[in-house]
């Protein structure tokens, strides 16, 4: 019996659905089953520290949204609506925190604002203090890092929303007698609500899953992500599982609540508008003040990057009590590339990021190719949902779930012992990368004109030839965009790595952590600089295509 193309497609869809379900849903199911442990649940419920961590996770996430919005939204209005000298350059600089992998950003803050950081040393020198004036620790420190790294989401989303705004609507409101504030409150804000809701969702989810900042700055202050890793390191696996399921539930509830607020994008329904005209700031004094404040802010944003660069030039043991390091040299970078034990993490991260990105791109391409013929109004296919699902859950959740699933040898239930092997961490990177590549590649497929593939077919190209000669070249921008984002996410990953790494595949972030532990700050910073530069380069390449 021969197989018709339709049957082959259905078989392909089934196979891909099952593969994705095995990667994405199965570990979560195993995790949930593992959490049905009476003793562990009892421990969780009766232990006040657990409730404290849960509460901390939630309020830190909400506070991060408030702070990031408080910085990002006014900045977006400033850059989108007003004109002042240096607006373009500053507008680009202001997105800089985006190229700092979360963990690298955290250590940069440590070097800058930590108790022995530059700022503390400067204050100490100026006032002649015996001891460091502060300790960078606890909830305040975490929020500082979150505000710094997450306001970018609000800034970019709000600017995008404002750029779509039809200026004539605002003029209409003013013509109807609404003052500036009334227009803002009754017209502008409701119209950009979908952008604000999108940024709120993104910041909340990112803050809830944030691990690096609480891990480094938390001290005794625990949130769920750090609590889970601590339980796991203590060997309390059942408790860690319960905690992970609780965190996953919070994430899902948060997602559901915030999604409801998102609503439909009314701007799309109303069609294109005229772009707003930027108003130059007329009064010279105000203009000078705005410009100065803008540049000061940019310097503030650049400081962590500069700090990282400077610390990476400090040789081991040469900097003790001075405000600025007395010796700078490239010796840390030389050691990085000369000593095999130091070079290894760089190579590990590079191959794992490359392999997981390629795998995630291949899965996304397969999904796109299988789903491309579906009519636009059709119900959401399970494959699409499976690709998007890992985004809804914090990285810690997937790390623990994968560790639980692949610590048992049971081929009949599709479980093998991968814990302790080098394969598990890249597999986790693949899962974490699926939403990134999936979103980019599926969007790329949606923009393809189906007639192009038909044209190739009518010119004698078979399915594979049409894919290779027409579809793939046209998808290059989408692949570059999704691939570069996935690559840098995997390259700088810390949250998954700390749960799943082994000595043989220890990635850069883990090596930074161990260098910090033995006070080799220069080496840690040098690794950070390499990550930062690699991220910026890859992002630049991805954006140019």
């Amino acid at each position: 019996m021969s197989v018709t193309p339709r049957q082959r497609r259905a078989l392909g869809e089934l196979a891909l659905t099952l593969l994705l379900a095995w990667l994405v849903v199965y570990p979560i199911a195993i995790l949930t089953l593992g959490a049905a442990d009476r003793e562990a649940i009892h421990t969780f419920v009766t232990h006040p520290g657990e409730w404290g961590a849960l509460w901390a996770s939630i309020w830190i996430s909400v506070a991060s949204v408030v702070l990031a919005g408080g910085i990002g939204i006014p900045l977006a209005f400033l850059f989108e609506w007003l004109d002042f000298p240096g607006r373009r350059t500053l507008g680009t600089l202001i997105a800089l925190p985006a190229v700092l992998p979360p963990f690298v950003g955290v250590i940069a803050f440590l070097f800058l604002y930590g108790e022995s950081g530059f700022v503390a040393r400067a204050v100490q020198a100026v006032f002649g203090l015996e001891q460091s004036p502060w300790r960078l620790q606890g909830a305040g420190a975490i929020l500082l890092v979150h505000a710094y790294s997450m306001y970018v989401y609000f800034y970019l989303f709000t600017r995008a929303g404002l750029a779509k705004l039809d200026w004539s609507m605002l003029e209409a409101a003013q013509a109807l007698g609404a003052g500036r504030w009334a227009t803002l409150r009754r017209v502008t804000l409701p119209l950009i609500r979908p952008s604000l809701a999108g940024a709120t969702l993104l910041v909340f989810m990112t803050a809830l899953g944030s691990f690096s900042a609480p891990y480094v700055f938390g001290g005794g202050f625990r949130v769920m992500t750090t609590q889970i890793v601590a339980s796991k390191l203590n060997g309390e696996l059942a408790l860690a599982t319960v905690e992970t399921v609780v965190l996953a539930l919070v994430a899902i509830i948060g997602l559901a609540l915030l999604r409801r607020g998102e609503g439909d994008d009314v701007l799309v329904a109303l069609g294109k508008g005229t772009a707003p005209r930027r108003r130059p700031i007329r009064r010279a004094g105000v203009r000078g003040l705005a410009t100065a404040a803008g540049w000061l802010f940019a310097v503030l944003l650049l400081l962590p990057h500069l700090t990282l660069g400077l610390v990476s030039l400090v040789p081991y043991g040469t900097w003790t009590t001075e405000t600025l390091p007395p010796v700078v040299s490239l010796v840390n970078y030389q050691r990085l590339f000369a000593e095999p034990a130091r070079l290894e993490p760089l190579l590990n991260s590079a191959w794992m990021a490359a392999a997981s990105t390629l795998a995630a791109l291949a899965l996304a391409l397969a999904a796109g190719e299988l789903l491309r013929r579906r009519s636009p109004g059709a119900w959401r296919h399970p494959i699409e949902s499976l690709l998007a699902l890992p985004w809804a859950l914090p990285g810690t959740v997937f790390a623990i779930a994968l560790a639980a699933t692949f610590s048992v040898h049971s081929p009949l239930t599709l479980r093998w012992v991968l814990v302790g092997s080098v394969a598990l961490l890249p597999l986790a990177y693949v899962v974490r990368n699926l939403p990134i590549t999936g979103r980019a590649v599926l969007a790329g497929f949606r923009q393809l004109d189906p007639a192009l593939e038909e044209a190739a077919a009518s010119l004698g190209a078979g399915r594979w030839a049409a894919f290779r000669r027409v579809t793939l070249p046209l998808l290059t921008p989408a692949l570059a965009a999704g691939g570069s984002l996935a690559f840098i996410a995997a390259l700088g990953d810390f949250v998954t790595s700390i749960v799943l790494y082994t000595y043989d595949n220890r990635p850069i972030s883990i090596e930074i952590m161990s260098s910090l532990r033995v006070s080799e700050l220069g080496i840690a910073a040098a690794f950070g600089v390499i990550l930062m530069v690699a991220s910026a380069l890859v992002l630049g390449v991805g954006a140019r295509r």
Partner: protein
Amino acid sequence: MTVFLEVAELTKQWAHTVTVGPVSLGIGRGEIVALLGPSGSGKTTILRLLAGFETPDAGRIAVEGEDVTAAPPAGRRFGMVFQHYALFPHLDVGENVAFGLGGRGKGEGGPVASKVAEALALVDLVGFERRPVQELSGGQQQRVALARALAPEPRVLLLDEPLSNLDPTLRERTRRELRALIQRVGITTLFVTHEQEEAFDLGDRVAVLNAGKLEQLATPDELYERPATLFVATFVGRANVLRGPAARALGGRDGEVVVVRPERLRFTDAGFPGIVRERRYTGPAAFYVVEGDDGARFEVQAEPGAARVGERVYVQAARMIGFAEPAS
């Protein structure tokens, strides 16, 4: 005429309510056939079934006696020009034309390059090989699409609304050039259009489709003068549809629906009486809307000075076509 492309009882069901076919057509070698019909009549579906982009539920497609019903598009050797041309944006003109030739087209002087040059010469685009397709005008893009479809020497050429994307002022000239080119190549051609003028001008024969069914396949003259159905009579050209006393007065039998072209009606001294309600002047002639004494309104084409608005007139038909009242 020996049949070159044969379509037999081709059927495709979309939803529960929409069915295309069964449609049967026989097309001779080198013939140009238009598929004409209103939107939703199934003409594009038939073209896509022929190209192999859709699979029929029943029926058969054969070329030169070879059954290609189950063949994939790539295996049919049918050339297709898409409505929006579907030129590959990542390839230049030469690479687009070379796509179906099994080569890249880059090699100077090779067999592929000379075939590309030949195809481009055919559509009057000599030397355009290295131009990016985005820089071409709409008319040039259409000719590249045509050259690309013709380069692999297909057995049948399919065109989906070939002129709909062009400037109206360009259309008439392009239509003549297109017909001359197809005749020069001598390729069997089917094209889809919703414009009667285009179908008549370009097609040797025209297949009129309505609600998924083939109403008539005939030459333009025959369609106009001897329409097989009431739909064809009213869809092709201007037509007055009359029933009752007016129909009988103009020569129809009892219970018949009568179709009369405006230019076949004339004012006389005695005939069906009515009053001129409107006059539209078009230059060489004028159209008069006449309201008959039984209330029926119809259009008469006559000399610009033949009657005035409000004047009482008598109308006779030089030629009418009677149809049995369709069962509704």
